[in-house]
């Protein structure tokens, strides 16, 4: 580089040297806009089909330039995590930083290389645009700034959850899942974008974004407080919830590998790490000081019944719950094995509910020990929440043999401590979670008794396609040495000189008809025999409505085998409400939601 000495005077002639410019080739720039660079941050486009309306772009926008507008033509589906909101952008505020692009969970919003927009003072409306596949002026430009792996602002990978290995768990009923450590929980929680899709999807509308945020901030008590606003069965749901919230989670909608937040495990973590006494204090919050003088009877101490009781007691009413079995919890206790839901966790949920003032009468069977009429006489309202505790039978040939039993009955025996007759080999009919529960429970008992597992599970549904049970259930069952034969329909239970020797099945060709209705077709030629000392039927459950008694049954309106209820769970009989599995089908969180709904309606009814 040529040095210039400060003391040089320079020359008046030097500038003239630049006359040589006349000899140079002139530089000419074209009129009109040049093409922008490949990653230019121009005007936005938004793929309306990819966009799920989670509003993350609006939250990250540092200039408050994004308004979420509702587009009625787009279908909403809370259970799938789809809102009909879409971003509209105010170019009077936008600064083209592209943070919206980099945070979008579904990579729907992107920027083009279009960058020219001019208008007169009276056309300022043109600053407020609704980006679609085409940009501000409706013509398509090449893409500019789009999300890359580097620029992605979201942490898409779920923190791994530790599990007991199959060897370690097969001979006992210890809980399989380890649960998060504080560090992992905080990391997992930090992934949440607070879109609230989970909350919209949850039947009980649990405030997941709030408690996830609290967990992220290490304030677990606050988290539990959020949970108890909507769910007194948080221990149970922290373990066995069907978690549609995670199906709805916006992170789960991402392209490529993008896991939803482990909302269920986070809930479990918070519950496990706050003391019982503290939780009791939290549960009491908002309990009415003065008694209402009204009393309610609840039939069935399952999630639906107890949730209703919990709410009603907090409203100052007197609630008595009648339970036919020696302990409360309903199916969560007598249907879900310990390795999925340890009894002590369930006990705590129930203890907390009782601590608020819910009175549970055990071993009282309504219908025999006390009639519905009596309950009505003694109370202002009655809630029926007896669940689906009776197993259905295939009633195929031989199914009346004593070694052909129903899953729900067996499952009930184990926690009750009744002596279970453990067969050397067993065949389970059914492909749902109940079938899995009984198969895996029996496997454990077999391991304990004979040191080996011999369970065959036959299901109409096809693995990986129509199968009903959760994937992890299937995976874990296989790990535990259970053989699953899918697409097999039961034909008959084979009995040789009145001893059960096994089950005969035929192949299932198709399972749904054109309208998607459940209508299996069989290939009667394709026979298979499965040796077994016991056949367990897990095809379906029903409710023992006989306890209502002739009269009430006649008085009630019915809807295809179920008590007919309105949207608040109110039956056609003024003093009777019904909630939970028996009216809504099996699912804990639904039962909880139902409990709330019914309690709210009863309270309204009693105060009128």
């Amino acid at each position, binding site marked *: *580089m*040529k040095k*210039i000495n*400060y003391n*040089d*005077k*320079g*020359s*008046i002639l*030097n*500038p003239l*040297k*630049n006359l040589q410019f006349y000899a140079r080739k002139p530089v000419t720039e074209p009129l009109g806009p040049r093409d*922008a*660079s*490949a*990653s*230019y*941050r121009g005007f936005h486009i938004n793929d309306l089909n990819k966009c799920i309306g989670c509003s*993350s772009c609006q*939250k*990250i926008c*540092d*200039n408050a330039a994004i308004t979420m507008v509702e587009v009625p033509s787009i279908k909403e589906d809370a259970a799938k995590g789809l809102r009909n909101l879409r971003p509209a952008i105010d170019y009077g505020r936008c*600064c*083209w*930083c*592209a*943070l919206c692009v*980099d*945070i979008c969970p579904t990579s729907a919003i992107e920027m083009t290389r279009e960058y020219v927009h001019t208008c007169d003072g009276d056309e300022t409306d043109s600053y407020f645009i609704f980006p679609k596949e085409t940009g501000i002026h409706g013509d398509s430009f090449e893409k*500019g*700034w789009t999300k*890359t792996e*580097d*620029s992605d*602002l*979201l*942490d898409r990978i779920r923190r791994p959850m530790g599990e007991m290995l199959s060897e370690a768990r097969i001979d006992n009923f210890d809980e399989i899942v380890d649960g998060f450590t504080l560090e992992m929980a905080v990391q997992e*929680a*930090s*992934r*949440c*974008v*607070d879109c609230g899709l989970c909350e919209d999807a949850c039947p009980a509308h649990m405030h997941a974004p709030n408690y996830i*945020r609290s967990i*992220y*901030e290490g304030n677990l008590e606050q988290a539990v407080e959020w949970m108890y606003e909507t769910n007194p069965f948080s221990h149970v749901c922290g373990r066995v919830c069907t978690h549609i919230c995670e199906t709805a989670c916006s992170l789960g909608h991402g392209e490529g590998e993008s896991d939803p937040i482990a909302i269920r495990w986070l809930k479990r973590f918070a519950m496990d790490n706050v003391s019982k006494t503290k939780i009791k204090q939290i549960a009491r919050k908002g309990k009415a000081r003065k008694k209402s003088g009204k009393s309610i009877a609840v039939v069935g101490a399952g999630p639906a019944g107890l949730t209703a009781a919990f709410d009603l007691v907090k409203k100052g009413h007197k609630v008595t719950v009648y339970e036919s079995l020696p302990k409360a919890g309903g199916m969560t206790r007598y249907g879900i094995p310990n390795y999925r839901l340890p009894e002590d966790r369930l006990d705590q949920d129930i203890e907390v509910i009782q601590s608020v003032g819910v009175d549970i009468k055990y071993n009282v069977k309504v219908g025999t020990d006390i009639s519905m009429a009596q309950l009505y006489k003694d109370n202002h309202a009655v809630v029926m929440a007896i669940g689906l505790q009776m197993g259905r039978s295939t009633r195929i040939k031989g199914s009346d043999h004593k070694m052909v039993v129903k899953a729900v009955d067996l499952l009930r025996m184990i926690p009750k401590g009744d002596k279970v007759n453990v067969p050397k080999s067993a065949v389970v009919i059914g492909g749902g979670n109940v079938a899995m529960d009984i198969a895996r429970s029996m496997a454990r008992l077999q391991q304990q008794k004979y040191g080996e597992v011999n369970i065959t599970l036959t299901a109409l549904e096809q693995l990986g396609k129509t199968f009903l049970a959760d994937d992890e259930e299937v995976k874990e069952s296989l790990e535990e040495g259970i053989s699953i034969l899918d697409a097999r329909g039961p034909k008959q239970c084979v009995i040789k000189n009145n001893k059960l020797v096994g089950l005969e099945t035929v192949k299932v060709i198709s399972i749904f008809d054109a309208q998607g209705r459940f209508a299996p077709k069989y290939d009667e030629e394709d026979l298979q025999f499965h040796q077994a000392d016991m056949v367990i039927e897990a095809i379906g459950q029903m409710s023992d409505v006989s306890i209502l008694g002739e009269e009430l049954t006649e008085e009630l309106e019915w809807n295809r085998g179920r008590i007919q209820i309105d949207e608040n769970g109110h039956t056609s009989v003024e003093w009777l409400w019904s909630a939970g599995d028996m009216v809504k089908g099996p699912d804990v969180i639904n039962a909880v939601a139902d409990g709330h709904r019914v309690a709210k309606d009863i309270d309204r009814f009693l105060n009128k």
Partner: protein
Amino acid sequence: MRPENYQAVKLGDSNEYEIFIGPNHPGIEGNYAFRLMLDGDIVVSGKADAGYLHRGFEKLMEGRLWIQNLAIVPRICVPDPAPMEVAYSMAVEEIMGIEAPIRAQWIRTMQLELSRVAAHLFTFGGHAATTGMYTPMFWGVADRDLVLDLFEDFTGGRVYSIYNIPGGVRRELPPEFLQKLSNLLDYLESRQNDYDNLLFTNQVFVERAKGCGALTQSQALELSVTGPNLRACGLAYDVRRDDPYLVYDELEFDIPRQKHGDAYSRILVRRDELFQSIRILRQIIERLPSIKGKIRTPIPNPLSWNVRKGEAYARVESSKGELAYYVVSDGGDKPYRVHVRGPSSMHAVQTLEFLAKGARLEDVAQIMFSLDACPPEVDR
């Protein structure tokens, strides 16, 4: 002060009179006013009048998520925005206790030097214009635009790159980029003679600039003058060398200086610095391809990102001097306090007022511009 609110000062029987120059005038890049008390055409005293570009950035930043601030920091200095992003990011990183991957640090260094080149080209033009020469202005701005093309190429934005993020940079370099860069550097070097002939060795300019707004080293130190303005007074001080950050300690470059501390010395320092930057960029072109790896250290999802309690004072050498960000976190999802220490806040107020004293009115603009002050750094 809004001009309409300005009251001309009535003086008794004295020949002194006050004039109000600005907020728009050739002396400054941006809006900035200067009130001069004159005796004839000699400045008796000057009073800087700022506030025309005050957008309350420091306040704004307290109300925005950590990451959202990246979109506004570059706006604090239009001609040289890159150091703002980098300094802010560095401060946040220090509080978090993370470091940008080495490749990201090299890319940041490249961005900073490119920005310096652009800023100096801009200043040449501006400074020349204050002496009534407009061609260098056209050249400077035209050549700066070529640098902006490169910024657009790898950051996606011409002026406000918004390219940095705590933990690294947002995007990999596009293919062929280093080639384009090296072509640009060739071109800029080829322009050296043109600039020298037209400006730096142009007797008309030299005469005007020499001795104009001269500052002794001790005066400079006393007024906390930094950057080229300080180096023009003979002190070879440069944050890049004396408080090293990013990868400057791995790079070879000289620190140009002059002794006389006047406008001419200042622009000569800048001229030499421009070529030092080119020298640095050439080394980066050579080294960068061999530096593999990620360009971002992951940070939590910015919507739920609480930066742990702490404070950090991050300093960088911008084209104007020592730029520093003092960031305080109370453990929340937004900064508790961000203080921007722009070099121009030292140059455009006290130093300018000091130098204007006794100067001739015609020189005031040149003194201002030779200090290369950036009003938004004062206003923030």
